[in-house]
């Protein structure tokens, strides 16, 4: 099932900002990703189940700040103690998740339709993020994630790659357009290609 775009009203393709005279490969690339399964998994406080024994798409949960465990299709982001955000290209994974995480021990919530997802790629990605968020992005490495705010908008950053830098930003769907405006405004000085 194809999901309805959260950014359809604002995301237009083309080149914007200070792109003149620059190699197209050096520009930031901004895109929307809308066909992902997003599931929040929270272990109840009184649960005795060992989450380390649970296997989802070959991945095991890790209770460590900033950590992301991943394979080519699925990424599991640490949100908080005993709280994770699973993001996957495999939309059929939901059944497997519900089978593995028993509802007596875990709260599993499908958030796929309630998030806007923006992906940015390019060497100036961290500079764009620093403009609206006081987190020290220099410590953020490949396969790290962080929850913070960008110009007051709560968002999650998932560092997909570091050569070149590529991040995936999640925000509440209703804040998606505001976040998109903030990100694209901050990207103007570097020049960006919207794809």
């Amino acid at each position, binding site marked *: 099932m194809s999901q309805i775009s959260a950014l359809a009203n604002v995301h237009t393709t083309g080149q914007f900002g200070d792109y003149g005279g620059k190699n197209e490969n050096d520009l930031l690339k901004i895109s929307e990703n809308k066909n992902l399964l997003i599931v929040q998994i929270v272990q109840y406080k009184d649960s005795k189940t060992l989450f380390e024994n649970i296997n989802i798409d070959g991945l095991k949960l890790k209770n460590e*700040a*900033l950590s992301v465990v991943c394979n080519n299709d699925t990424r599991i982001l640490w*949100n*908080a*103690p005993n*709280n994770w955000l699973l993001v996957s290209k495999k939309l059929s994974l939901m059944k497997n998740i519900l089978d593995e995480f028993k509802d007596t021990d875990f709260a599993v919530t499908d958030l796929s339709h309630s998030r806007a997802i923006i992906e940015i790629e390019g060497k100036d990605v961290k500079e764009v993020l620093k403009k609206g968020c*006081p*987190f*020290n992005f220099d410590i953020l490495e490949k396969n790290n994630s*962080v*929850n*913070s*705010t960008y110009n*007051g908008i*709560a968002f999650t950053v998932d560092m997909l790659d570091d050569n070149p830098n590529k991040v995936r930003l999640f925000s509440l769907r209703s804040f998606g357009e505001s976040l998109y405006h903030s990100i694209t405004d901050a990207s103007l000085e570097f020049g960006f290609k919207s794809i």
Partner: protein
Amino acid sequence: MLYIKCPHCGMRPQIEFSYGGDATVKRPELNKEISDQEWDDFVYNRKSLRGKHLELWQHLSGCRQWIKVERDTATHEIFKTFKANEEVA
């Protein structure tokens, strides 16, 4: 900007946090007779200390956990942070 070390996430800017009041206030024990004055003290009355103070903060835009922060109310220096369930000596 003030930076607070969340015991779960690490060093984070203060704008990710929300202040939650005095962390030393104890709720009166359940099923125990208490006076109006004691109840008033628990709900409303607070000291406005100048100096080292133990406070509750919530990491609202991060891990959403409540934490305790030992902070100087005059200088804003933060000495130590604790998990909410940690006992402070």
